[in-house]
């Protein structure tokens, strides 16, 4: 009798543990395959791959720098535009709408809907509608008036680093907003009340008490947004222009790590393919580091939500 009861428990434990092991296995296998697939390229180019600026399939010369540059630049633009907006929305919902919870919920739902739109639809809209608009109403005017400034110089393209950055900003705002809201909600009311009782205004309370307290959580939101931006493929591929280039001009066409993989993997063989896999490996590491960093920062916030 005793053994029959225990056997059910043992089988169940092993089953659930196996599922957990699968996940560890998946991440490990991912790393292993990427390493082994890029072995040829690594042995050929070594560390120079990271600083190489040439990408020439015909002559079999490959370097990753233009793509690393493109990924980081577009992500930076996305963060610079998106983070203040996300914090703004989060503050608005969490701190200002206290009496109007219905609106807060509705607003939160709207922002969440942004997250539900598939990447390829962002790309479609970005390519066919938004990019030309950005070029005509933002890039060309800025280029005309501030073109001496390297960021705004060169020839403005519709598909550019800038367009990709703006589209990415729209895409990562929901994530950063959701996390920021959670972070702000986790700030104990006693912090706010203490400030209010000293006669502070709404904005002073937010700026001097709530935001500083939530600093590391907000930083985590930023890192999480960065993680999403770095890995985003379809929308970026459709609006970045796909030109191998390192340039300070925001309005010119460029390339990103994930776009390269999407565009060129199909025809690649041999060293070419191995180099693309190495590009994926670089993306893997960037995403890994960013994600781990974000999780560690947000660990404190999510701890508050665990078992009662």
């Amino acid at each position, binding site marked *: *009798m*005793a053994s029959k*009861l*225990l056997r059910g428990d043992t089988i169940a434990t092993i089953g659930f543990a196996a599922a957990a092991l699968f996940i560890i296995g998946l991440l490990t296998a991912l790393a292993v395959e990427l390493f082994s697939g890029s072995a040829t390229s690594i042995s050929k180019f070594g560390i120079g791959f990271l600083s190489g600026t040439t990408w020439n399939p015909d002559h079999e010369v490959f370097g990753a720098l233009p793509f690393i540059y493109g990924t980081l630049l577009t992500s930076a633009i996305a963060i610079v535009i998106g983070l203040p907006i996300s914090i703004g929305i989060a503050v608005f919902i969490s701190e200002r709408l206290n009496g109007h919870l219905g609106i807060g919920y509705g607003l939160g739902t709207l922002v969440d809907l942004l997250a539900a739109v598939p990447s390829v639809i962002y790309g479609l809209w970005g390519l066919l509608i938004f990019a030309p608009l950005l070029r005509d109403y933002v890039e060309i005017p800025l280029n005309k008036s501030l073109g001496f400034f390297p960021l705004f110089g060169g020839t403005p393209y519709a598909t550019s680093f800038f367009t990709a950055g703006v589209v990415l900003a729209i895409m990562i705002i929901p994530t950063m907003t959701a996390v920021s809201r959670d972070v702000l909600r986790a700030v104990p009311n006693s912090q706010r009340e203490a400030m209010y009782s000293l006669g502070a205004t709404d904005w002073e309370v937010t700026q001097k008490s709530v935001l500083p307290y939530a600093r590391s959580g907000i930083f985590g939101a930023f890192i999480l947004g960065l993680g999403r931006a770095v890995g985003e493929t379809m929308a970026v591929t459709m609006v970045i222009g796909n030109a191998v280039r390192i340039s300070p001009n925001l309005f010119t066409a460029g390339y990103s790590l994930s776009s390269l993989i999407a565009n060129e993997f199909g025809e690649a063989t041999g060293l070419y393919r191995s180099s693309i896999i190495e590009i994926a490996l670089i993306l893997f590491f960037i995403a890994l580091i960013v994600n781990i960093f974000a999780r560690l920062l947000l660990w404190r916030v999510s701890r508050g939500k665990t078992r009662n």
Partner: protein
Amino acid sequence: MIHENFEAFPAKLETRNLTALYGKVEEINRINLKFPENRVTAIMGPSGCGKSTLIRCLNRIHELTPRAKVQGEVILDGVDIYSSKIDPVAIRRRIGMVFQKPNPFPTMSIYDNAVAGLKLNGVRDKKRLNELAERSLRMAFLWDEVKNDLKKAGTNLSGGQQQRLCIARTLAVQPEVILMDEPCSALDPIATAKIEESIAMLKKNFTIVIVTHNMQQAARISDYTAFMYLGKLEEFGETAKVFEAPKSELTEKYITGKFG
């Protein structure tokens, strides 16, 4: 430890040098206690004295908490329930437990809650389930109030009714001992009175151990009382004697309200 003829009477359940730890912290220390058959034994004491830990050791629930450890013996009908030959799951069918806050299963109806211990363990015989459901709900003094609403959700009941449902749920499994961890502390006086009434009837067929912080309750319903302080057993004896002529100074201080 101060006892009244301790060695003399037989007990359904007893502890020998029972010690429980959480991590490195000792919560109860070398408790030797007897729970006489078909009697109500109350365990009382101030907050933090270990009474909840003690009762949770009696049906091997304490060890489910991570980092919790139990040493010593708990003997049911002459057999140590902590022996490695014994299956804790089987023991828990013989020693049932009612918790401080009523905890009916939220996804189940009143009927399903009452027979949960049977249904979830594979009993399918509808006739038997119906019989046991009615019998347990009657013994818990709840049948008349719910007999026409058996399919309704268990959580739709009032607090007192929910607790009686939990008692019925425990009874349906037909245990021999019923442990109650402050079962009335979340309830109003009327609901409390109903449950105390049912306990008085239940002891005819079961051995009952009740943890309570309410001294009047202990005096009202128990036959034997144990007083615990800081993880140790301070006094144990017939309730009337413990309350009227406590042997230990600490017991006397507690009873007269000098500390809580």
